[in-house]
């Protein structure tokens, strides 16, 4: 296996507060990695630092060998990252299909002037329909997003992220807020996507689902690396147990 | 001596800006609303102050009642205007606020006439000479009042429970709610205090020029918007420093670049230059 994403020395400060302190993090091509840790451990901040939503004090980020540390967010996405949000953020003026089709058209909006003379949305809509099928919400495709249940919107986040054709899919608590049955189903869907060859990094608090579907764990606590490795052995480590039991 | 006089003029003007802008920045910090109608409360305060001073014969009573009147009006604006549209995109509240301000300005014009009002016998106009510096008593009173008010404000925000609650609510409304701070009460308080301060500033400005006009709020209100951006939107200390800096820059600017730019445009030239150099404003909060 080759390392596809390498994040080193990641340090993020908010005001006087150190949110991440010298974190080292890597992702292997094709694996399913779960990023876990107690609340406030800095998991979302780490994903935000990787995508450039948050500006780190220090960080060295390499995606497939290219240095992305100094690129703005949209360029990092174009190089192969995709992110879903913990609190769903659909475009509210669009339908489900339009949300995904917009993401699928990322090549058409790359150059501003050519976006003004490009009209056809058919190809993107077809692509979008396929992604909606992958996450199982194609029957909602023509509905406005405002009245849809959370379960559908969580899946919409995943479909929209897939539509930018990433090398790595970064999922921020995709299961949060769902009941255990829904969560289990969505976890299966995500595992399915992983089996199609997608590299996945997932932040998740639902440990039973995490242990069921992950290949490897990376544990953060208080903004620092705590542990990393194969799920079962990581969960046996005393420092991990201490962190989770509030030690 | 000219320099010192200009400097003092600048400080008086600047501290008045500060008293007005502090309310705006507090509201922005809490609600993310650019509260343009704040200037209407400033004008309302000035009118109330002049009318009530003329009625009662006491400037103190006039200022006090004006502050209460504008403060209550400020709370009403929060309740009746902003609260119902907080979940809408930000332009909705901004445009509503602009409409409200224009409506208020026109109402003042229609009710009190386009030429404004004056004090029957303007108090505190005697000239005091101090080391060759000529100041009117009202200028000294303005400066002293402003310093006291800012001091009280600092004390409230640093030392009292409600003030700490306000700062916590700005930082994180959900967490502060967990600690038993009612965010809605904090909002009412902010609107009351901010509007009362603006009203005091209004009366003092009326005193300095012995005139209240329907449009007197326009220029200070736009300038105070520029000030809160310079101060880093929502940052109170930054707002105070930016206000004083602007007052002084204007005082000197009118003398030295007055033939290039009129006084009221200096603030915005300053704002745009600062944003070009430091896009987050002088004092970014984060």
């Amino acid at each position, binding site marked *: 296996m080759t390392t596809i994403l390498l994040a080193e020395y990641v340090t993020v400060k908010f005001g006087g507060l150190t949110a991440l302190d010298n974190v080292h993090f890597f992702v292997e091509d094709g694996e399913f990695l779960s990023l876990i840790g107690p609340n406030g451990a800095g998991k979302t901040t780490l994903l935000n630092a990787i995508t450039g939503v948050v500006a780190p004090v220090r960080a060295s980020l390499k995606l497939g060998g290219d240095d992305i540390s100094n690129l*703005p967010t*949209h360029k990092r996405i174009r190089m192969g990252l995709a992110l879903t949000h913990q609190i769903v*953020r659909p*475009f509210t003026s669009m339908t489900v299909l339009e949300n995904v089709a917009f993401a699928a058209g990322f090549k058409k909006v790359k150059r501003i002037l050519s*976006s*003004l003379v490009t009209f056809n949305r058919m190809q993107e809509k077809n692509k979008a329909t396929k992604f909606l099928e992958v996450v199982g919400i194609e029957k909602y495709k023509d509905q406005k997003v405002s009245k849809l249940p959370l379960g559908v919107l969580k899946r919409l986040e995943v479909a929209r992220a897939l539509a930018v054709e990433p090398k790595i899919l970064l999922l921020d608590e995709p299961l949060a807020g769902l009941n255990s049955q829904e969560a289990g189903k969505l976890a299966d869907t995500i595992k399915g996507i992983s089996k199609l060859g997608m590299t996945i990094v997932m932040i998740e608090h639902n440990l039973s689902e995490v242990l069921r579907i992950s290949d490897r764990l990376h544990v953060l606590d208080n903004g620092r690396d705590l542990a990393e490795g194969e799920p079962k052995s990581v969960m046996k480590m005393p420092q991990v147990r201490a962190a989770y039991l509030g030690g | 001596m000219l320099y010192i006089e200009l400097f003092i003029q600048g400080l008086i003007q600047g501290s008045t800006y500060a008293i007005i802008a502090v309310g705006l920045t507090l509201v922005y910090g809490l609600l993310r609303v650019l509260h343009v109608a704040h200037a209407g409360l400033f004008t309302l305060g000035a009118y109330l102050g002049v009318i009530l001073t003329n009625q009662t014969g006491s400037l103190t009573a006039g200022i006090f009642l004006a502050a209460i009147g504008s403060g209550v009006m400020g709370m009403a604006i929060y309740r009746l205007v902003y609260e119902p549209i907080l979940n809408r995109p930000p332009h909705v509240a901004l*445009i509503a606020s*602009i409409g409200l301000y224009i409506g208020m*300005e026109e109402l003042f014009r229609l009710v009190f006439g386009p030429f404004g009002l004056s004090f029957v016998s303007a108090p505190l106009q005697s000239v005091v000479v101090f080391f060759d510096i000529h100041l009117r008593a009202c200028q000294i009173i303005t400066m002293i009042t402003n310093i006291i008010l800012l001091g009280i404000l600092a004390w409230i925000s640093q030392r009292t429970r409600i003030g700490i609650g306000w700062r916590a609510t700005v930082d994180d409304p959900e967490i502060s709610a967990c600690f038993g701070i009612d965010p809605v009460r904090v909002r009412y308080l902010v609107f009351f205090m901010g509007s009362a301060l603006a009203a005091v500033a209004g009366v003092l400005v009326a005193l300095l020029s012995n005139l209240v006009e329907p449009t007197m709020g326009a220029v200070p209100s736009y300038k105070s918007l520029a000030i809160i951006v310079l101060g880093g939107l929502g940052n109170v200390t930054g707002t105070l420093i930016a206000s004083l800096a602007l007052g002084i820059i204007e005082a000197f600017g009118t003398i030295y670049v007055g033939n290039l730019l009129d006084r009221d445009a200096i603030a915005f030239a300053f704002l745009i230059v600062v944003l070009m150099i430091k896009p987050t404003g002088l004092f970014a909060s984060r």
Partner: protein
Amino acid sequence: MGLYEISLATVVGINIILAVSLNLITGYCGQISLGHAAFFGIGAYTAALLAKIGWPIYLTLGAGFLLAGIVGAVIGLTSLRVREDFLAIVTMGVAFLFVGIVRQQEFLGGEMGISGIPSPGMEKPAYLCLVLIFVLLAILFSWYVKRSWMGYAFDAVADDEQTAKTLGLDVKSYKITAFAMGTAMAGLAGGLYAYYTRFIIPDVFGFIQSITILSMVAVGGIGSIFGVVLATIFLSLMPEIFRFINDYKLLLYGILLFSVMRFAPDGLAGFYKMLYKKRNLR
């Protein structure tokens, strides 16, 4: 049509171009500009000065269009870098700066403005036709933008900038583009206005004018071309039809802006949609 109606129609046409151009910025892309009249003014002053030194109308209009767009792009660059609320305040500043600077410059006519602007070289009805052609072009252009992928991107930016970024969209450039396009169109409207009145003073391009343009967009329903055009016609004709309200014109604008935002933030367009939906439900 008498001369009065022709001149009224010309003003309405210019206002429509202004409102449609602001709608590109505020309606499509979600960015508030409180200084649109300044770009209107840049276009008017550019066209007026160049016309006076003998440039032909198509060149002066083009120059006003370009200069307003360039200044717009520069302002957009400085204010769109950081926070969304900056643009509103900076553009408001631009409104004051424009009037403040123009008033003090002798070559721009100072307080007295510029008079004796040459005629456009055509009769009033023909000039009205020219204005209406530009109105049509402006409307067609915004309709065209809405349908393109650029319009799709504007929708995304107006909905949620942060999410648009995490889907690989260069949000900043799109915002600047919207701003430059809208301000350039306002510059064109300014040129048309200069030839129409043949006399311009700085105060016409002040903050109140900016707010008037914003009212047209807001009352019409932010983002809706149809609603904006309708609201512009209504708001431009209102003081003419109801002469007696002239003294209350601003009060009415204020109340209208306030009430629309407070009670029906989607404007005329939203109102129409609501009626349409209700009928469908029955």
